[in-house]
């Protein structure tokens, strides 16, 4: 399918050598939304969880230490910028790199927590993120081998072959693992139990936005 059918009229391009970024209303909207969220998250403080105790009327507070806070904020900003980049890029290999970056940074955001259950879930998610780099980059390589190009603009004009469809599904499996969508959601769901709410939100937001963009990219390749 054509880029303009999916995203609206092309408003302009940003040429970075072979990696050309196409600006359509759809891409620009997603880009700006992610940037606004990243700015909000960068400015906000973390939540302090208040937990009720069993057997008594007391409660305990779970807060985030300063150095942990700084690292997690830094990683959350990087995650937001990577998501924004994935929204706007017009190159297939470039988008896989952005998604790989999001996967690694997501693990990093929760790896600073000192809660065994959360660390265990993050470890399992890290394993999936590692495994999924095979279908992610493998899918992009299959499409490159089948068409000889990586530019989404050129790919949109090429009729789909069985090898391209296979590559596209491989890419989808890679993205599903890297962003941890259902049915592989359990690892991420456990990760959200940790305190430090705004940084956890960017994990959610990045998977959501990346999946929307990935569906657009797959439609460009397959149809």
């Amino acid at each position, binding site marked *: 399918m054509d880029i303009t059918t999916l995203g609206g009229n092309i408003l302009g391009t940003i040429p970075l050598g072979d990696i050309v970024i196409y600006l359509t209303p759809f891409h620009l909207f997603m880009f700006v939304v992610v940037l606004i969220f990243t700015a909000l998250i960068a400015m906000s403080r973390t939540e302090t969880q208040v937990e009720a105790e069993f057997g008594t009327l007391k409660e305990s507070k779970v807060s985030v230490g300063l150095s942990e806070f700084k690292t997690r904020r830094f990683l959350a900003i990087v995650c937001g910028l990577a998501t924004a980049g994935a929204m706007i890029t017009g190159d297939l290999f470039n988008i896989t790199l952005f998604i790989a970056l999001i996967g690694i940074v997501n693990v990093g955001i929760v790896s600073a927590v000192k809660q065994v259950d959360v660390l265990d879930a993050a470890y399992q998610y890290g394993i999936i993120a590692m495994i999924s780099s095979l279908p992610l980059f493998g899918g992009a390589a299959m499409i490159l081998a089948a068409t000889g190009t990586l530019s989404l603009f050129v790919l949109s004009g090429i009729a789909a072959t069985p090898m391209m469809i296979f590559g596209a599904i491989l890419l989808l499996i890679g993205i599903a*693992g890297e962003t941890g969508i259902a049915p592989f959601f*359990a690892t991420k769901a456990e990760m959200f139990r940790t305190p430090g709410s705004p940084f956890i939100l960017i994990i959610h937001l990045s998977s959501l936005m990346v999946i929307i963009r990935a569906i657009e990219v797959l439609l460009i390749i397959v149809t």
Partner: protein
Amino acid sequence: MSKIGKLWNALANPDRIPKLYSLVLAAFLLVGFLVPISLDTNQIYPRPVPQEQVDEESPLAPYDRGGKVLKTPGIIKAQYSENSKSIGMITSYMSPQAILVQSISPYFGTSIYSSPGGLIDEVLYYSRGFDTILESTILMMSFVIASWLVVNFTMNTRRAEKDSKNSKKANIKNINISKNISKIDSSSLNKEEE
């Protein structure tokens, strides 16, 4: 409990997810054997035929792209050639050391290519330079995460303990709570089974 409920419960355990994911991936890769695969020979980033340059006894094999620095471009293609107008002009640049190595032996092509001052891969640094920046960013982020973990979880545990007094206390309580919950859970489950 219904069958689908059991399935959801099985999917809710993080330990099982990597196994499930690997199974799905392996099954799909097996399907890949049935898909007709053909290489489009009109590739955007062409490579010479394997061993071709070695057979020609070029000292820069297998990375010889020809061309003269700032005079004639080497054989290198770009998707959007209008964005990289001077591609190929410096791909054959070699420092005096690299020229010396080249004159000594025909077997050091890879060393010349991988050393600073040797041949330059313009696909990496010019036409697809943004990808190279991203790749190194991924590496840097993993180093940031790994070094933070090393410093705070293994080397500097005393300060880390001070920092996280609150969360540590809460952890101990959490463990107690989870023990209580598991007791409650198992007892209620037993009742259900009964």
